[in-house]
């Protein structure tokens, strides 16, 4: 038993809010109908899906009919990227896609797969803070460019992109613009009526909703080719019996998130984040923040590189102290490369290996943070004492 447990891996997944679970509960064993059935059980399931769609749409100020539920955030990214790329190529608009070096695998691997299917693509670099330059985007647009996909905020380094400016560039050139807002949605204000984005990805489990449900906002009038074929659910864009409880949970999570944002909870969290960052940097020498700071950073997100040591060791020792974190140094999908995101921001391999991500929730308290600030420095000391690179 540890004295305290502090879950700081909210970029990986969040705790389902008990109010969300409560909203979902009746749809498993009581109101368990298939929304496509005509009878009472089907109708009550359909009504629940309709309500949840409206709630989810409201979070980003979209119309309900413009929100498509998918089985994961990754699936929404795949649908947006492949669905638009295929549809636009079929119309003879071209086959060039632009993305950035720090996209999530769901977008990046989709683009690369399209590369195998005869599409061309450009991967834009980022600066030291992980920012994509709107000018660089503009310069990369070609006459045959059809689609740009650039994430709203990054999962590893918390950087929020200049989405409005990037979208404006796309609009100016008549290019479709998708943004992966899995880390941003529910955590910072997003208004698709104001932002020039055509498609936007969300995932409930990153905002205190359930796992296994994503959503894609698709601006009215946009035609996509589905990636999942079948019965024609979700406006024909995502076949498969609707995951009613999870959809209901998404709706509830979106409703709660919206109320929180309206109450300015993101500002409070950002203040705690800055206290946390300040504490880590001052207590642990030769450590730096990765990604952007201030308003350009997700309010719940901190991430660091700690020199001379590796992330995994920190994770395990923190784990033993009841502190649950993650590291970009971990192998992703069996690869042992350090995070491509960190490398893209200009870090060398060895430094990138020392990455640690600590991402808060609305349940994180100042006491939790102080506990981490007490336990973390000696852990670093212990590991550095074993490092051949550290000058004792």
């Amino acid at each position: 038993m540890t004295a305290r447990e502090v879950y700081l891996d909210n970029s990986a997944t969040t705790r389902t809010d008990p109010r969300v679970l409560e909203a979902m509960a009746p749809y498993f064993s009581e109101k368990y109908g298939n929304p496509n059935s005509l009878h009472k059980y089907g109708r009550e399931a359909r009504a629940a899906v309709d309500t949840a769609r409206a709630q989810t749409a409201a979070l980003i100020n979209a119309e309900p009919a413009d929100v498509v539920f998918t089985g994961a955030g990754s699936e929404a990214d795949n649908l947006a990227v492949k669905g638009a790329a295929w549809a636009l190529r079929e119309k003879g608009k071209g086959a060039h896609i632009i993305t950035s070096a720090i996209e999530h695998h769901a977008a990046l691997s989709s683009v690369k797969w399209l590369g195998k299917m005869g599409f061309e693509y450009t991967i834009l670099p980022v600066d030291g803070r992980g920012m994509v330059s709107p000018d660089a985007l503009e310069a990369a647009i070609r006459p045959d460019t059809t689609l740009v996909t650039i994430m709203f905020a990054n999962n590893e380094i918390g950087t929020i992109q200049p989405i409005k400016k990037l979208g404006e560039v796309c609009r100016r050139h008549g290019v479709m613009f998708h943004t992966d807002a899995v880390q941003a949605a529910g955590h910072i204000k997003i208004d698709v009526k104001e932002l020039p984005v055509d498609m936007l990805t969300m995932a409930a489990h990153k905002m205190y909703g359930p796992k296994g449900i994503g959503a894609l906002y698709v601006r009215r009038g946009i035609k996509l080719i589905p990636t999942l074929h079948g019965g024609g659910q979700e406006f024909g864009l995502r076949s498969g019996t609707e995951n009613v409880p999870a959809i209901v949970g998404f709706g509830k999570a979106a409703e709660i998130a919206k109320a929180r944002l309206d109450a300015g909870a993101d500002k409070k969290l950002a203040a705690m984040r800055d206290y946390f960052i300040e504490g880590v940097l001052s207590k642990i020498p030769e450590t730096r923040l990765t990604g952007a700071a201030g308003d350009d950073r997700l309010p719940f997100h901190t991430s660091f590189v700690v020199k001379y040591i590796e992330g995994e060791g920190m994770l395990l020792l923190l784990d033993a102290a009841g502190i649950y974190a993650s590291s970009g140094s971990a192998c992703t999908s069996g690869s042992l490369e350090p995070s491509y995101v960190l490398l893209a921001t200009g870090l060398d391999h060895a430094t990138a290996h020392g990455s640690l991500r600590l991402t808060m929730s609305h349940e994180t308290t100042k006491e939790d943070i102080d506990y981490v600030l007490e336990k973390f420095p000696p852990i670093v000391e212990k590991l550095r004492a074993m490092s051949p690179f550290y000058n004792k």
Partner: protein
Amino acid sequence: MYNQKVVDYFMNPRNSGRIEDASAIGEVGNPVCGDVMKIYLKINPQSEVIEDIKFETFGCAAAIATSSMITELAKGKTLANALKITNKDVADELGGLPAVKLHCSLLAQEGIQAAAADYYMKRDGKLPAGLSFPESSMSNGGAEEERFVSEDSRAAD
């Protein structure tokens, strides 16, 4: 997906059945779904008022509800006035139909037209100017690969 009024007109159909000594019978088929409606009229030869009207329908619940509604609307009207009832009138009177079910209400409108045509053909051997046997030209949209938006897109299980 149906509102209460539609459900009521389906559950408690008005004027369903046959008229054995009908003055005219109209039979129409829906080219969209293959459904069929038959309308029986009892017409006063002097006033041309529809004194009795009955329907038989092989179709969905919307087809039955709209059949039942149009018989109610037409009863007591002159044939000329009954012919002015459009499928939209019927749907509106029912408080609206789901988008995919709008075509069903066409059966009702065309059923009256067909019965009227039968009446005039029997009586005069020809149709009055402006009246013809109905021939619907509705087609079924919604190519599967395209984004399909409807308030009620039922899907396979």
